[in-house]
């Protein structure tokens, strides 16, 4: 399987801070990759490079071997969907939210996508204020899925959820990956989550990759153990 994303000597600076320093790494296609690291390690910045919410100050990011800078960002973002750390539900109902993503979606499509996110059609008429944190995050997932992305970027999507909601969202995304063939890149610093989800692991520390590959090796465990000392959970 070829690379889903490849980072070639990628540097990312903003506001005088270097978030990533000459990172060379890869995330393979066809799997569920986890990008791990302590707070401030650059893992979310790396993810934001993948759909061009950030552009590198130096180096090249490739998506399926194509230089990202040569792709239309709007088309790319429909192919590479993203779910953020904090659910940002737009004003209006869940239906309104889904229609922001795809204005011509019919009722069947809305129902399908809610089912994929494990929400019922009863949610269509509910507003953001009526949703729990877990439900709001699922609405954001459904809103992303309605664009039929090839890839899901999950930026610490369970960090504000309680454990049950967190495990349920993980299960939903794993099902999407297995049953619908959606590639997933999941950013987290939760060691339990890494163990449950990672088929491929990239560990960052202070803007540098310190491990990439099989998550079950001793070296992977050592790189993750160092995270605990940095305050990772």
């Amino acid at each position, binding site marked *: 399987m070829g690379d889903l994303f490849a980072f070639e000597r990628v540097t990312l600076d*903003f*506001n005088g801070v270097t978030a990533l320093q000459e990172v060379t790494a890869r995330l393979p296609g066809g799997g569920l990759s986890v990008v791990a690291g302590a707070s401030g390690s650059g893992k979310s910045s790396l993810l934001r490079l993948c*759909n*061009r*919410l*950030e*552009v590198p100050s130096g180096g090249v990011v490739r998506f399926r071997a194509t230089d990202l800078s040569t792709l239309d*960002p*709007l*088309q790319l*973002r*429909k192919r590479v*969907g*993203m779910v*953020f750390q*904090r659910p*940002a539900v*737009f*004003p209006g109902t869940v239906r309104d939210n889904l229609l*922001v*993503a795809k204005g011509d979606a019919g009722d069947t499509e809305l129902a399908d996508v809610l089912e994929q996110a494990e929400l019922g059609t009863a949610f269509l008429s509910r507003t953001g204020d009526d949703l729990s944190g877990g439900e709001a995050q699922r609405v*954001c997932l459904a*809103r*992303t899925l309605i*664009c039929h992305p090839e890839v899901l970027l999950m930026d610490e999507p369970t960090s504000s959820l309680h454990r049950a909601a967190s495990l349920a969202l993980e299960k939903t995304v794993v099902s999407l990956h297995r049953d619908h063939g959606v590639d997933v890149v999941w950013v987290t610093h939760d060691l339990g989550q890494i163990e449950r989800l990672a088929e491929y692991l990239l560990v960052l520390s202070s803007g540098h990759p310190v491990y990439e590959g099989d998550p079950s090796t001793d070296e992977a465990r050592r790189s993750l153990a160092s995270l605990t000392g940095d305050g990772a959970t």
Partner: protein
Amino acid sequence: MGQGDVGALGLVTSLLLVGVAIVVSLTQQLRLEKSLIWSTVRAFVQLIVMGFVLAWLLEPGRSLTYSWLWVAGMVVFAAWTVRGRAPEIPGLFSIALVALAVATVVTLGVIFGLRVFPMEARAIVPLGGMMIGNSLGGTVVAARRVADELADKRPEVEARLALGQSSREAGRPYVRSAIRTALTPRIESTKAVGLVFLPGAMTGLILAGVDPVDAVLVQAAIMYLILGTVATTSVVIGLGSLRLLFTPDHRLRRLARRTD
């Protein structure tokens, strides 16, 4: 008195309410006293200077070029003020300058083209000031609100961008809200005209002995031009700010927080 002659006593008396406001600010710890004093002193100095300049401009035989230069100066100063009130928006000065200049030229062109007032120094400078001054309030609010909305709602805006929306689409709800905020005071004051207050131009004309109906028609024309100018410049600044706050590849720029 009674002939537009205020005198020192009248001027001091008019400051009584400002003094009350300063006392209220101090006792309630609103921290507005410095701004109140500064704006009062500054307005006085500016008006005195303006009085001398107007007296010079109105001297018989003085070329109208100086009046137009004065208006041009007001446009530049207003654009600079807009830029200063929303410094986090890069390149705002140019857009504000063009918007205010075009709006001023068009409105003064209508006023003098239709002979609402004769094109002379005593009309060019005050009317130019009226158009630019009213636009300034709207444009400052529009620019600041757009920047504030996009900074406050950054997660929502980025969620929209991540769905493949263009920067224009992603920013539209926030710009709409900002422009509405900028225009509401002008719309409300236009609605209240004649019921709550009698506007200055009309009052001045009536005091000068012009037939009240003629004065009303002149005021209506000026009021519509002001409303149109404020609306146009606010929309241009709102949409222009939106364009400036995103990169050409549809990313929201990082916005520094204002300290005020």
